[in-house]
Structures are given as structure tokens and as C-alpha cells.
């Protein structure tokens, strides 16, 4: 199982662009028209200076009297060319913006969606800041390039070709000289491109690292403050900021250097043309006028070459960003949704079966060993065990947040891996250990459980759970803002909200992982009794440290060091003793006075 994201390092620049365009088909839409406008505006850009120059030179310069009619024609031509250039540039740029932004929005959304499709483990290993940077700043980099870079590169190549043809018309020998002078540049471009690509890859990566470093003390603001470790935290952030700065500076240095090479080549070419022009001229192959005209042509060649190299070097940052976004899309979603091909679970209480299930976190030792477990429908199961024994892992396998390393988990006899997610999530709901809420109202959070729930549904769900009085104590009721991650509620209240959310989803199998661990005992018992009623006609698996849950369950499963060591009703296990006896005794001890 891969837990790290594809860095996309293996794919080259062209491939990145090609694949990027595949992911964003909008980029191709209307590209013909855009290109036509580009050609038009390029033509205009060539015509305008020539027309202006002709007007000045021939019109005015024509022996004494200005040639008014010629000037009139030329000025009209120039004016028209200016207008055409402007209009064509407008349409070209506007269309580029539209296509690029539309294509990138699609890419952003696809990448976002894919992050959610990635297995939980991959999501957890990757830093959130880094994930966020892939759908935000990495995409922004691409947009700059697409709008200003891509087309300029294409147009530059066109201009180089045209210039070469015109030069050949004058003198093939001198053309050869020019090309030879630029050959080292063209050849070294690949080398620089690789170096730049690596350098900007590091830059983009450092952005993610930096964002993570910045987000940590924001999320952990309370811990940072209560331990007064602001200085140390700032040092860590500063380190990340500096590393980003260094990476960017290094990349910029490379960019500047490789860009400046174009100028050196141009100097070489100018000198070469004059020198060889003289040599050829002495042979009588070429006239002085031709050499000088050729020297002018070289500038037509040099301009686009420099433009092109600049675009190519600047593009590396964008391509590095693009690569990272594509890297997300290329990371396989190991826990795959079988989709329509899968087997839909029928409604009704679920039977659970673990067959020889072993699980190891990537790169770690197995934390569950050969677990075999059979749970009949309509059973209320309590899972108990010491910290780190593997209870949460068991729950995650049961809800297919992860797939077993070996063995099979079955619901109603169906291998979980063949159940479509839509059916699975509909029937199986887990309330995780940490009650995460979205920064919105209580209502909006409840709706995550059931999209079309009305306020009455929500209140009814709360009432069934015995939480109506709690809702009543909230001055703003369902409109109560819960804050980021639910932190404007107390820890217990967060769990209550998560319970309501899960209950609204009305699952056939409810998995509760310490779902009431922060709730006060009186309320917990009340919820416990309510759940007892509500889980009739369903299967429920409850992980709890408080043994009161186990006492009331139909069946207790005791996990110890990744194995199921005991199972059966509370009373029987109590007689049996063993791990359960110990856990229970310690529970009794904590409920009595020492």
C-alpha cells in the first residue's frame, strides 16, 4: 500500500504538459481560434514597425518633398495594423485567460476530489499544508505560465523559423554561422531545463513544508501558548521560511544565468556574421550591403530566441507545480470503490465476519494478527482492550477506511472490497475517536449525516438520543456556530454533535469509537440507554474504556496486543477472568473510593 503521494518526479516536462492538458480538456477548447489571433497579432507586431519605418524613411526622406500620398497609405496601413494587433491581442489574451482558468479550476477540483479518494493512511501521512498547497499555490503557478508563457513559446518558435527562412534567402553560409553560434545554447537548454526542473521541484516542495510549519502552531495555538514555546516554534517556522527562500533564490540564480546565456550567444552571432561576412565578402560571395542587412536580420532571430529561453526557464516553476498536482492524481486510490460493478448490501441488520485478518501499518509490524470474528446481526458488541491494542484499527477495517494486509472482512457474507462505497457508507457509519466538526453551524454539521434532514429531523434525532435538553440549553439552538474543528463547543458537546450526525444517517451498522469518552457519566449513561433502544434492529460495535458499556452489551470482544483473546457476554467473561477480568477489576476500582 502506498502511503506517500506521487511526486511526479519521473515524468518529464513535455509529458507533464501533455498529461496536464489531458486532465484539463478546457485548455484545448478553442485553441485554434486563440492561435489564429496570436498569429494575427504577431503579424501586426511585425507590420507596425515596418510601416512606421517606411513612412518615416521613404515618405519623408524621399528627396526633399515629403511624398504625401505614400505617407497617407503607409500611415493608414500602420494605423490599421495597430488596431488589428490590439484587437487580436485582446481576443488572444482574453481567450487564453478563459481557457487557462477554466482548465485549472477543473484540475484543482479533480485534485481535491482525488485527495478525498485517497486512502485514509495516505491522507494522514501527507501534511495537510502540503496537500492544501497542491490545490492552491501549485495550481496558481501553472496559471501564470499558461497565460503568458505557453503561447509566447509557440510564437517564438514560429518567429525563429521565419527569421531562419529569411536569413537563408540572403546567405546560407551566414545562416549556418548564426545557427552554429546558437547551437551551444540550444544544446545546453536541455541541461539547464533539467537542473531548473529539479530546482523548482524543490521550491514547490518547500512551499508545502512551509505551509505545514505555519499551520502547526495555528492549529496547536493552545499548546504552544500554555508551554510558552513560542520561540522554539518561531525558530521552526523561520527555518522553513528560510529554506523556501534559499530554494527560490537558487532556482532564480539558475534562471538568470541560463537566460543570460542567450545574450552571449547573440554577441557571438553578431561578431560571427561580421567576421565571416568579411571573409566571404573578400571572396566576392557577398556584398557589404548584404552583410549589413544580414546583421539586422540577426536581431529578428535573437529576439524570439531570448523570449523563448525566458519562457522556457520561467516555465519550470509552473511545470514543477503542475507535476505536483498531477502527482496527486497519479497516486493510486488503493482502497478502491468497486462502483456499479460491486455488490450492494441489502437493507437490514448486518452480520460481521473477520476471516484471518492481519493488518500492519505501512512499514510497521502487524498490529492485528489473524483475527477471526463472527458477529450475528442485531448484536450489540463492545470492544475493549488496553491502549494501543488495535481497537481503532479493527474499527477502521470494519468500515473499510483501510483494507486488511491479509484476510477478508465480510458484511452479510460479502467481501467489503466488493461493496460499492455508496452502499457501504449508507449502511455503515462510524463515529471516530476525535469528533471533528466543520466550521459552521450545528445544523450544517448534522446535515453531513443526512443531506435532506429538516430541523425537525435533527431535533427528533437529538431527542431520541436523550439530548433534547442539551439542545435547549444552547441559546442559538441549531444555529450555534461550532467553530473550527468544533472548538467553540466543549469536548463533550463535540461528541454529542457527532452522535447526532451519525444517528441521522440511520445506519444498519453503527461503529462507535470512544464516542462518549468526554461526556459526563450521567449523560453518558443516558446516551447509553438511548443507544440501547436505538440499536435494536441493527448491529452496533462500541469501543469504550468505560466498562459500563461492556456490561450492557450482548457480547464483549477483548483485544490484546492485536489478538482477540476473549469473547462472550459480560457475565461469562467475568467468570473467565483473564484480560477482561483485569480490565473490569480496574474499572471497578476506579469507580470506588480507594
Amino acid at each position, binding site marked *: 500500500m502506498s502511503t506517500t503521494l506521487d511526486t511526479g518526479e519521473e515524468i518529464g516536462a513535455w509529458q507533464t504538459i501533455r498529461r496536464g492538458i489531458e486532465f484539463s480538456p478546457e485548455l484545448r477548447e478553442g485553441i485554434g481560434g486563440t492561435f489564429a489571433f496570436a498569429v494575427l497579432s504577431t503579424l501586426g507586431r511585425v507590420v507596425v514597425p515596418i510601416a512606421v519605418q517606411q513612412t*518615416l524613411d521613404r515618405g*519623408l*526622406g524621399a528627396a526633399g518633398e*515629403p511624398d504625401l500620398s505614400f505617407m497617407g497609405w503607409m500611415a493608414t496601413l*500602420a494605423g490599421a495594423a495597430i488596431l488589428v*494587433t490590439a484587437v487580436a*491581442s485582446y481576443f488572444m489574451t482574453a481567450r487564453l*485567460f478563459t481557457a487557462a*482558468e*477554466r482548465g485549472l479550476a477543473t484540475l484543482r*477540483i479533480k485534485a481535491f476530489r482525488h485527495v478525498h479518494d485517497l486512502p485514509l493512511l495516505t*491522507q*494522514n*501521512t501527507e*501534511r*495537510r*499544508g502540503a496537500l*492544501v498547497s497542491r*490545490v*492552491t499555490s501549485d495550481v*496558481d503557478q501553472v496559471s501564470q505560465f499558461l*497565460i503568458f508563457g505557453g503561447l509566447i513559446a509557440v510564437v517564438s518558435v514560429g518567429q525563429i523559423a521565419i527569421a531562419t527562412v529569411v536569413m537563408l534567402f540572403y546567405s546560407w553560409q551566414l545562416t549556418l554561422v548564426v545557427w552554429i553560434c546558437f547551437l551551444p545554447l540550444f544544446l545546453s537548454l536541455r541541461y539547464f531545463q533539467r537542473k531548473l526542473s529539479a530546482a523548482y521541484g524543490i521550491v514547490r516542495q518547500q512551499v508545502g513544508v512551509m505551509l505545514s510549519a*505555519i499551520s502547526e502552531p*495555528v492549529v496547536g495555538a493552545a499548546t504552544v*501558548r500554555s508551554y*510558552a*514555546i513560542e520561540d*522554539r516554534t518561531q525558530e521552526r517556522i523561520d527555518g522553513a*521560511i528560510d529554506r523556501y527562500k534559499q530554494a527560490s*533564490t537558487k532556482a*532564480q*540564480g539558475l534562471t*538568470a544565468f541560463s*537566460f*543570460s546565456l542567450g*545574450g*552571449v550567444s*547573440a554577441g557571438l552571432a553578431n561578431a560571427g556574421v*561580421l*567576421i565571416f561576412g568579411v571573409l566571404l565578402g*573578400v571572396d566576392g560571395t557577398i556584398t*557589404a550591403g548584404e552583410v549589413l542587412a544580414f546583421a539586422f536580420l540577426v536581431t529578428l532571430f535573437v529576439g524570439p530566441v531570448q523570449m523563448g529561453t525566458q519562457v522556457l526557464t520561467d516555465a519550470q516553476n509552473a511545470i514543477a507545480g503542475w507535476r505536483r498536482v498531477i502527482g496527486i492524481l497519479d497516486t493510486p486510490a488503493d482502497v478502491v470503490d468497486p462502483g456499479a460493478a460491486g455488490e450492494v448490501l441489502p437493507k437490514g441488520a448486518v452480520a460481521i465476519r473477520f476471516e484471518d485478518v492481519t493488518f500492519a501499518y505501512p512499514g510497521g509490524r502487524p498490529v492485528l494478527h489473524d483475527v477471526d470474528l463472527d458477529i450475528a446481526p442485531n448484536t450489540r458488541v463492545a470492544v475493549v482492550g488496553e*491502549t*494501543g491494542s488495535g481497537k481503532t484499527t479493527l474499527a477502521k477495517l470494519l468500515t473499510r*477506511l483501510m483494507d486488511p494486509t491479509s484476510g477478508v472482512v465480510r458484511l452479510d457474507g460479502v467481501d467489503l472490497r466488493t461493496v460499492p*462505497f455508496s452502499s457501504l*457508507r449508507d449502511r455503515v457509519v*462510524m463515529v471516530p475517536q476525535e469528533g471533528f466538526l*466543520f466550521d459552521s453551524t450545528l445544523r450544517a454539521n448534522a446535515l453531513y449525516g443526512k443531506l435532506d434532514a429538516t430541523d425537525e429531523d435533527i431535533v427528533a434525532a437529538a431527542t431520541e438520543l436523550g439530548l433534547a435538553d*442539551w439542545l435547549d*440549553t444552547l441559546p442559538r439552538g441549531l444555529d450555534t456556530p461550532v*467553530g473550527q474543528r468544533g472548538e467553540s463547543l466543549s*469536548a*463533550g*458537546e463535540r461528541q454529542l454533535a457527532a452522535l447526532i450526525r451519525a444517528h441521522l444517517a440511520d445506519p444498519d451498522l453503527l461503529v462507535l469509537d470512544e464516542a462518549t*469518552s468526554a461526556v*459526563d457519566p450521567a449523560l453518558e449513561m443516558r446516551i447509553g440507554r438511548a443507544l440501547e433502544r436505538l440499536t435494536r434492529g441493527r448491529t452496533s460495535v462500541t469501543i469504550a474504556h*468505560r466498562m459500563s458499556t461492556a456490561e450492557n452489551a450482548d457480547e464483549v470482544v477483548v483485544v490484546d496486543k492485536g489478538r482477540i483473546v476473549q469473547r462472550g457476554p459480560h457475565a461469562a467473561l467475568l467468570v473467565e477472568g483473564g484480560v477482561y477480568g483485569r480490565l473490569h477489576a480496574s474499572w471497578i476500582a*476506579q*469507580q470506588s473510593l480507594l
Partner: protein
Amino acid sequence: MSRTRDRSSSVSAGSTLRDGFAVLGVAIRREPWIFTVSTLGSLLFGALTVADAWVLGWSTDHVVLPAFETGEVGWGGLVAVLALFLGVAILRAVGIVARRLGAGVMQYRMQAHYRRDVTRQYLRLPMSWHQKHPTGQLLSNANADVEAAWAPIAPLPMAVGTVAMMVIAVLQMLLTDLVMALVGLLVFPAVILANLVFQRLQSPLMTRAQALRAEVSEVAHESFDGAQVVKTLGREQEETERFARKAHQLRDTNIKAGHVRAFFDPALEALPNLGVLAVLAVGVQRVLHGQADPGDVVTIGYLLTIVAFPIRSLGWLLGEFPRSVVGFRRVSAVLAATGEMQYGAAAPERGRPGALLEVDDLAYRYDDGPPLLEGVTFDAEPGRTVAVVGATASGKSTLTSLLVRLVDPRDGAVRLDGTDLRALAPGALAAHVALVPQQAFLFDDTVRGNVALGADVPDEDVWAALRTAQADGFVAALPDGLDTRLGERGTSLSGGQRQRLSLARALVRRPRLLIMDDATSAVDPEVEARILAALRGTPGQEGSTVLVVAYRKATIALADQVVYLRDGRVADQGTHAELLDRSPGYAHLVNAYEVEHPDEQAEVSR
């Protein structure tokens, strides 16, 4: 959800232009040397571009034409041509490197300065501020906004460098023919006008785009943060739609801004050319009337085309202004935020092992909430253990955050060894008091780093703390022991394991006052008893003062004193036995697990 939306979307164009220059001024004042280097680079580049033309002229006159005339190759001349062209080219390359690298370094340094300032501010501002600003927004402030603010630095040296070129050209024009020059120079007001229109159209769009960038980042951050909930409830599609809404808004705003830009750029390019045509029109008349030479028209026409390039590079610079100003404003809003805690200078000695904690008539409410705590008064004598008991949401965690001064009370005071917490110097409180929060927060660091938190603690002490918190077993089993990296927020550990590390973190500091906010739910009761025993010291010897938020009777029973919170007040305090006796609500709360008689429920309400 975005509570930090800008209210400044209707700024006038003039102020954008002014503010844009002001932002650049900030950068130049902060990094004058690098700015000078890159501008010199740009000037060098400009000068050598002119020199290039000169070299061409010189070579033509002194080498090429003579060679053609004489039909002989002068090798010395050819070498000179090569040397001149290469020399100029290399110097020009130096100019380019200085300009581009200088601009880059300046830009990255400014970014780094402001990222540091912004994050310092994040660390300085109070919890209440953080609760109002979503993480994604703050990330965007430190990233996209800082980047936007300093974007104009990249084209800056080029623009400044070409200004010299422009000034020379303009002077030459004026000297050549005043009337035509003035006509030509009409290009300038036209450019400024175009710019004002551009800024006016663009500023609100950019304000919106930057705000939307932050919102996109906010949704992404939150959604990835809650990925497990999204998964378990199968809400991937809805989350994607939520993200797509923001992404589409950003897209549409960017497209609108793009169209404005698409209009502005060609206009800027066309204006100098139109100027040339205007000069021609006027020039021809003047030539016909004998007021000017044709050569003057030619000169001014050429000079205007020379001016075109600086105008474009100025245009690039100005084009970045709206985004820059908006970014800078958003960053400045963070930097200007106030409300950070004021500290005194008191730094108490570590004196006796246990601290005296006095809570005096404390009152607190959250910003827009009803009063939560009122008149809370109790003491924790040195070396004693106090249990705080109360129903869910009764304000226990809020109380603990007041005790470690994460927030300041609305009324009343908390005193440590007689000193008001507000009079303590920064960091002084943490030297005596440690809080184990209800929800453990681990850093993306090693086990050692998470426990020691940068303090200079020998490994034996770390292990000792881990042992007491019952975390030594699983830490020893980790692949690299103390050096194992835990991943962001400690995701590679189980919930209970995280809690134990968070406990060890507090224990290793040997605090004189330890506050545990329901922090031992995943720890076996014997362990808890051991922790408390270890902290209490041996009989006859005073230990640390301990305050625990707890429900477990065994824990409560270890306390010398119980404070029962109800409806924001201390409903009762005394020993566990006393409270059981006289407070039915208390008895109901802590006895809930023991007896399960449904009729008891009616007896007392929460």
C-alpha cells in the same frame, strides 16, 4: 465562514496607484542595497544595449567597409570585432544576472521578512483571535497574500532601469522640436489615464480574487482536516461541490480580471505607436510649412518607438499593483491586529515544591456568548490535589484555560503564589505550571522533541516521564525509540498513546502546579494513581499542587478537595464525602455508573 472578508473593495484607482508605489517604497527601504545592485544591473543592461548598436556601427565603419573596399582581410580588426561584441555581450549578461537575481533575492527576502512577521503575529495574538480566523485563511495570508504583495518587485529594476532611457529620449525629443515633442508626449497622459481606468476596474476584482484564494485554501484545509469524517459519512461528492463552488468563483473572478488585463496590455502597446502616427501627422504639416526638417520628424518618431519599451515595462509593473496592494492590505490587517496579552515583569522563584493557586471571584464569557463562569472562587493549597467536577459544558476546560492564562478573565483574578497571572513575565507561568489539555496535540517532531519541547532535558528524564505516563512501553517499541518522528499531529499513534505522550510532556517539566483536563481517560486508573502519588511526593514531604478535571471516583477520591461546578458557579466545595452527602447533583453525576435505577434519573436534573 470567511469572517475576514475585506471591506475595502471600493478603493479608488488613484489610491491603488499611490499605495502600489508605497508598497514598493517599503521594499526599497527595507532592502536598499539589493535594490541598488539590481537597478545597476538593469542600467548596465540598458547601457550595453545601446553599446551594442555602437559596436555594430564601429565595426561597420572601421572593419567591414574597409575590408570590402580594400578586398583584404585585416585580422586585427576581426579580432577586435569579436572582442568587442563578446565583451559587450558578457557585460550585458552580467547586467542581466544582477538584475534578475537581484530582483529575485529582493522579492524572496521581502517575502521571508513578511512571512516571519506574520507568523510572529500568529504566535503573539491571543486565542480569541485565532478562534475567529480559520487556519486556511491564515495559511493564505502567509502564502498567497505575501506573494501577491511583493510580486511587483520582479519587474521593478527593469522599469527603473528603463526610466533613465526614457528621460534621455524625452529630453532629446524636446530639444529636437518642441511642438512635435509635445504631441508625442501626449502618449504619457494617455498611458496614465489608461492605467487609472485599469486600476479602477482591476482593484475590486483583485480584492475579491485574493479573498477567494483564501477561501479556497480554507475549504481545502478544513476538508482535508476532516477527511476521516468525510469518508466515513461518504460525503466526498458534497465536499467536492463545496470546494468547486469556491474554485469556480475564483475562476470567474480571475477570468474577469483577465479580460481587463487583456484590454489593458494591448492598449499600452498601441499608445506609443499611435503617438508616432500623431507626430507624423503634425510633423508633415510642419515640414510643409517649413517649420521643421524631415529629419526632425524621423528623429522624434524613432525616439518615441524607443520610449515604447520603457512604457511597456512600466505597464508590467503597474499591472501588478492592484494584486500587490490587496495582498499587502490583507497582510497588514494581520500585522495590525491587536489584543495580544500584556505581561508584567514578575518571575517568581521556584521556592517550595508546590505552588499556591488562588482563584478569586473569576468571571468569564466567550465573545458573543452568555456568561459562562461567575464568581468562581477557590484555592489550591501548595502540595494539595484539587478535583474539578462538573457536567458536560459546565466550563471546566474554560476554567483550566484561565488558570494557564490562555485567556484573561473578564473579572476577578487568578494568582500564583500570590502574584496575579497578568503581572508575570512572558514564559514565567510556563516555568511553574503545566496543562495537560483535554485533547492532546502533538507536533510533527520526534518523540523526544514532543516531550521536551526544546527544553534541555536529559534522556533519562524523558524516559522517566514516559514511564510515569505509562508511555515507555510503546515508545521503546517504536522503530527509532525517542527519535521516531510522529507525523503531523501524531497520526501514527493511537488516541491513548497520544494522550500519554501529552502527559509525559507535562510531567517532564516537574511543574509546581499540574493541571489535567480530563486527560487521563485513556490511562489506567492505577497509572493515574501512580502519577498523582509521584506528584504528591513522599509522606511528610510536600509535592506539586495538582488540579484535575475528572469524573472517575478513584481520581476524585485522591483529591484533598473537590470543586463542584454547576451553572457557571462553584455549587459546592469540600471533600468528596462531604459533597456526596450534601450535593445530590454531584452524587448523581459521579455515581452514575454505579447504580442504574431509572427512577433515580428523575430525582435530579443536570
